[in-house]
């Protein structure tokens, strides 16, 4: 059995841990998890396969090999673009990532992360670069991401981040898992089905 309990659950207020810097814009989901690993009916082995091709190419010097045990990932622009595969955030999560901070995220990727309880916070280029430098200086330091205040703290500095209020609320209240909210509205769904022209053979 998988140990799902280590995964995010309930209210998410704070992520603490060491960080991993992955530089570069437009890192797509094909790179996060190459398509050949999509041939699976369960997500459970994906953690080992995250960034598989980049890691092979870099022969052990890839950040995901050097910084095992990190829980906060720092990226640049448009992270997670490309395919909608949830395998990408799943692979990151199963490797151990619990939060991502970057300049911007691809939309579907962002939504997939939220659905798994992985906060994606943003900040402008300068701040991200500063954070990246700080981590490179002290790679083993523990950092802290506060969702309520949206601050990211190193032992000696702190930076402000952004996230849409709604999304922050969802994380803080533990309602990032929207399935139950959606199911609660079953009656409404049924009544829409009775009224939408294309579902009622256009009877009006």
């Amino acid at each position, binding site marked *: 059995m998988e140990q799902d309990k280590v995964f995010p659950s309930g209210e998410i207020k704070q992520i603490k841990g060491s960080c991993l810097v992955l530089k*570069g814009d*437009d890192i797509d989901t094909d790179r996060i998890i190459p398509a050949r690993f999509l*041939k699976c*009916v369960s997500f459970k082995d994906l953690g080992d396969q995250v960034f598989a091709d980049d890691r092979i190419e870099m022969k052990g010097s890839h950040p995901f090999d050097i910084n095992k045990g990190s829980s906060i990932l720092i990226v640049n622009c*448009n992270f997670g673009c490309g395919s909608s595969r949830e395998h990408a955030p799943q692979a990151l999560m199963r490797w151990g990532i619990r939060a991502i901070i970057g300049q911007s995220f691809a939309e579907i990727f962002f939504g997939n992360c939220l659905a798994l309880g992985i906060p994606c916070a943003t900040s402008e280029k300068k701040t991200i670069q500063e954070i990246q430098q700080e981590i490179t200086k002290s790679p083993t330091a523990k950092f802290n991401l506060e969702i309520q205040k949206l601050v990211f703290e190193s032992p000696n500095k702190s930076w402000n981040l952004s996230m849409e209020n709604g999304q922050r609320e*969802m994380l803080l209240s533990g309602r990032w898992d929207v399935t139950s909210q959606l199911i609660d*509205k079953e009656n409404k769904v049924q009544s829409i089905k009775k009224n939408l022209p*294309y579902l009622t053979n256009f009877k009006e």
Partner: protein
Amino acid sequence: MDKLHGGSTQLFIGLHLIHEVTSPQAFAALKDKGLKVLSPERTFATVDHIVPTTNQNRPFADPLAEEMLSTLENNCSSHGIKLYGLGSGKQGIVHVIAPELGLTQPGMTVACGDSHTSTHGAFGAIAFGIGTSQVRDVLASQSLAMNKLKVRRIWVTGQLSEGVYAKDLILHIIRTIGVKGGVGYAYEFAGPAIEALSMEERMTICNMAIEGGARCGYVNPDNKTFAYLNGRLHAPKGKEWDKAISWWKKLKTNTEAIFDDEMIFNGTEISPTVTWGITPGQGIAINEAIPCPEDLDPADKPIAQEAYKYMNIDPGTYLTGLPIDVCFIGSCTNGRLSDLQAAAEIAKGNHVAKGIKAFVVPGSEQVAKEAKRIGLDKIFKTAGFEWREPGCSMCLAMNPDRLEGSQISASSSNRNFKGRQGSATGRTLLMSPAMVAAAAIKGEVTDVREMLLQKENTISN
């Protein structure tokens, strides 16, 4: 439908399409939570990503692929979901079959666990790709949590010239706006050049809206849309058809609508467009040189540097004359009948250059059947192309079709990401199906307009 906690909106989904790659985990999650499929009658399945395109006999040679398909079959049968499986005559790439079967209709909300769901926007549907958790949500509740999108109208004037296709237009748009330019937006494609496009061409445009970062793309429904749908399997019939048309006609964007953003392109000025790099935004007109770092926006430089290195292509040089190894015609972008026709027109009377592996993969069993009926398979085979069974094939590496080593492919698909076509060092040049066929004949990247011109001359001489 309703505001949800956190500010997103609950959106009813009128059509849910599923396939073997992103659904098994969603069904497993349903089971874990003890949930049922709320609207199996609004859910349709097919198998496309993992199917081999040479030998489709079961069990597949690849046990993982076999497991994925049998999992899908079991999930569909136990939840009462219609599966258009192999050999049903209706199987194919999910974004090819749903329009073909008349499932996709104007005004629908369409979701599928696949980013190229934007394709269905060609019918004036709101269609977007979703992740597996959302597939679970749609199965359980026939609805989704969505944030409101901004709308950018992309107005295309003029008309596409001979030898320039919908693929060139969308590659040109993405190259101009950038792969991130569409984030937060839905794209409305409109204007004379868009209205002049066939439904299949509109699908190509909407298909790649996602490559420009947009969540979805759409074209307002018009008489072409209705004509395409008329008589299709799931399209309304008889009296219902007339009522459907009057409802669909009301869906058009209001003429006074105000858009969050507007952009104008001139279709007449667009040339065949080819990507040289590792994102769909790294494209150039065929007669243009590969950009030099100093000509680029500083933000685009690092990825360009990465691309020169990965592609082994020098800035300032031209793509024409670049030798290629593999030519792939197919995918949900360009695997429909008109795509194969455009490629066949080039292939006819010519032969694939020596040492080139060229193959054609119809987007669906129906496309294959129709292509055979009009003899396209013969034209291709005579010209030295392989004719395959329908599937996603070499668009991505989840089936036996893949690049080897650092092979370079001319491909009618939609993504040129590193490793996309199955080899970690494999290289992809995206272009229109006619351009791929031309490359196959010449053995190198070439301007299809020259071949078309030559053909015309031989005919008139």
